[in-house]
């Protein structure tokens, strides 16, 4: 419990999460996973494919309640969450713009989205249906949806795959802008170590399934100092700390 006046962190303490497949196989996805993300902090989850990252996010999003353990969202978080799923999950029967606006609260429904769409390179695609988008464009539409909501907590599941480096870079900068604009707690899953080191305050390194925290890497460096050579150094630092991971 937090003393009054101190912002509550995102606190995760999942003792076990087990799936039973339709064919009866039991799969332990998480076991003894616990970590914290301070309010306003940007954290990355890094772990091998299939280790349980998406499962963790789903639990935090309240989409999966069959687990043992508990978690706690930072203050105000329960009503202003935004998420970018690993697949875009756009409604195929609504246009790009409708998809984005639908996620907005009534207060924001008529918001001016021109700038957002422009940065994302979606200006000419606003009236298209998702089946008419390339995967990269669909991902950007999903990002637009998350960013437009002005969230207090942001969950991102590999948001920058299927994008060329140039576009991805632009979007990473956009993400930083959105995150910095107001006190937002962010938790992002990625497989790209450089991306994690560029964006995060701390990196939570996970073991193979069942996921557990192997360790935490604090990126001490201030963000505006993280240029290419600095990142190279951070990468080798990281590899020294976690010789087995990634």
């Amino acid at each position: 419990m937090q003393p009054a006046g101190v912002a509550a962190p995102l606190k995760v303490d999942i003792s076990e999460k087990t799936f039973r497949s339709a064919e009866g196989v039991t799969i332990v996805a998480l076991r003894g996973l616990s970590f914290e993300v301070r309010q306003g902090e940007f954290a990355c989850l890094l772990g091998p494919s299939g280790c349980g990252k998406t499962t963790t996010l789903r639990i935090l999003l309240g989409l999966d309640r069959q687990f043992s353990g508990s978690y706690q969202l930072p203050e105000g978080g329960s009503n202003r969450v935004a998420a970018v799923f690993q697949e875009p999950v756009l409604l195929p029967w609504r246009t790009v713009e409708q998809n984005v606006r639908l996620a907005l609260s009534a207060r924001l429904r008529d918001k001016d989205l021109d700038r957002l769409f422009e940065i994302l390179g979606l200006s000419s695609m606003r009236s298209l249906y998702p089946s008419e988008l390339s995967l990269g464009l669909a991902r950007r539409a999903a990002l637009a949806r998350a960013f437009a909501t002005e969230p207090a907590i942001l969950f991102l599941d590999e948001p920058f795959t299927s994008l060329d480096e140039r576009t991805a870079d632009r979007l990473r900068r956009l993400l930083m802008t959105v995150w910095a604009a107001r006190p937002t707690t962010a938790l992002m899953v990625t497989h790209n170590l450089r991306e994690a080191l560029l964006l995060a305050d701390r990196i939570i390194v996970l073991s193979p399934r069942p996921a557990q925290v192997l360790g935490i890497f604090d990126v001490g460096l201030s963000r505006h100092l993280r240029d290419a050579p600095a990142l190279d150094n951070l990468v080798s630092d990281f590899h020294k700390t976690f010789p087995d991971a990634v």
Partner: protein
Amino acid sequence: MTAGFGSGKSVSAGRRARAVSRAIGAALPAATTLASLLGLCLLWGLAAGMWPSRALPPPLEVWRVLLKEAASGDLGYHLAMTLWRVVAAYLVAMIVGSVIGVLLGRYWRADSFFNPWLVLFLNLPALVVIVLAYIWFGLTEAAAIGAVAINKIPNVIVTMREGARALDPRYAEMATVYRLGPLDHVRHILMPQLQPYFAAASRSGIALIWKIVLVVELLGRSNGVGFQIYLYFQIFDVAAILAYTLAFVAIMLLIELFLVQPLERHATRWRSRSA
């Protein structure tokens, strides 16, 4: 040695042909319908010519009867009575049936409890329901429409329940995360996914309802197409029976052409149309 299987010329020619015919098909659905109906009449005329029988009068004769009945005002009156019953029962059945169907599809515990009731009502003969309704609620319009609706509701439930079971959970999850209100949820998540089931229930529904309305009118109403058809059945006047039937079918066709199809095209415009 060239092992290609796509050649530009033929492909783009095919494309143009398809585009043209698509434009025709989209702009002139009425023309297609007309051609189709003419074809049907031709077949019918041929059959009636080859096997002349009182049970299959030629199209012209039916047309004559139709004109006569229309001129006398009977056709219009009885058609209007039947139509209003069909519409009323349709609305009741679709609304009640969709709501129950979706609920049963979502909550499997309720479903497993109420399923036997559903099977019962699904298999209650129209006769039984209609007679009971007339006995309990009197020979009234409300009893008639209620009886028809009760006959149809289980069918709607069954179809909509399948639709609710086949819902894609990812969209509902997205809606949860972004806290869509219940109205938005229904409008943007549920309805588009249920649309094909609704269309199926609706199309075969209105046909079924009309058929039951015929029975209802036969058993205890004093007007309507069913009443007339039975009258003519007693004197075995097939031409008149067909005239009344076809008048109703014509109305259904008009509704299909000018209401249902445009609506459906609008509702499914997001689907990439396959050739």
